[in-house]
């Protein structure tokens, strides 16, 4: 067995999947080949890394966290406003305010009496009381 054949069989060897005859040949080669022995130990270390990672377990109460995230997503979904509504809504609100102002002004002007009606008649508007006072009353001469 040469190095290439040995290295090709190393994965199966480490997984215990090699037939007995091949296993003996690989072991015989490994006993005499330092390079292949190093590849094998690197491969075994890699297997160890995977085995160690497999030992991890998720933290408890995963479902509680999942449920809270589901509920949060559902709330966002409820609160979600489609784009067309985000554009149309402010326009509708503005139009409603303008309409309300217009109706208010129109109705107000028709129903309320004009405050000008209570004002001084036009002929008295510029009547000057001071001008009517006899000036001579203040004249000492």
């Amino acid at each position, binding site marked *: 067995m040469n190095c290439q054949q040995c290295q090709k069989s190393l994965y199966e060897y480490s997984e215990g999947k090699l037939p007995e005859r091949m296993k003996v040949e690989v072991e015989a080669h490994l006993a005499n080949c330092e390079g292949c022995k190093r*590849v094998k130990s690197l491969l075994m270390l890699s297997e160890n890394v995977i085995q160690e990672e497999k030992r991890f377990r*998720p933290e408890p109460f995963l479902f509680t966290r999942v449920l809270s995230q589901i509920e949060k997503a559902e709330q966002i979904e409820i609160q979600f406003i489609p784009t067309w509504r985000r554009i149309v809504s402010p326009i509708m609100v503005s139009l409603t305010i303008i309409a309300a102002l217009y109706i208010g002004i129109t109705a107000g002007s028709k129903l309320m009496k004009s405050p000008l009606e209570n004002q001084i008649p036009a002929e008295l508007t510029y009547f000057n009381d001071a001008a009517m006072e006899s000036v001579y009353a203040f004249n000492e001469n």
Partner: protein
Amino acid sequence: MSDQEAIQTILKGYKEKYSILVDRYQDLVFRTCMGFFHNKEDSEDMTQEIFVLAYQSLSRFKGESSFSTWLYRITINASLNKLRKNPIEKLFKQLGAFSIKDSEKEMTFQIPEFETPEDILIKEEHRNWVQNALNSLPENQRTAIVLSKYDDLSQKEISEIMNISEGAVESLIQRAKTNLRKKMIQKLKK
């Protein structure tokens, strides 16, 4: 309660019954995520995301395959998407060889007391090398090797999940092993 019965109950509005499926399959999802992310925190977050995603897609589960197969598919797609989206983050993680928390380090390697700090560093370096070697594999090879090594699934089960023939799975695993072996030889030559 079977998976199918649980799904029917959940779809009727009893969302608390989803705990049956979460409890039953959390290890499966988490282990697969570990195969892709090699990090407890990331795998934990991803597991949570996958179960939320699965819940939201539950009405689309037709029962043509088993629930576990369907969940595996969601896990693989979500994990690969996440890795594709975060190449910069991934790069930083690969560079951050010594950024693993102490608690994680303790859990990852039960280091005997007589090991020197140098030994620990070598192991840590090796751990990162293995993770990078696995991550550098093409997506389909990586998926096949994760399902085979981390989930101990048979080629038949993997073929069902990946929707390819058993022969194709065998070929993917062989190519993945060859690529990993080549990387090992390259590393030893350095």
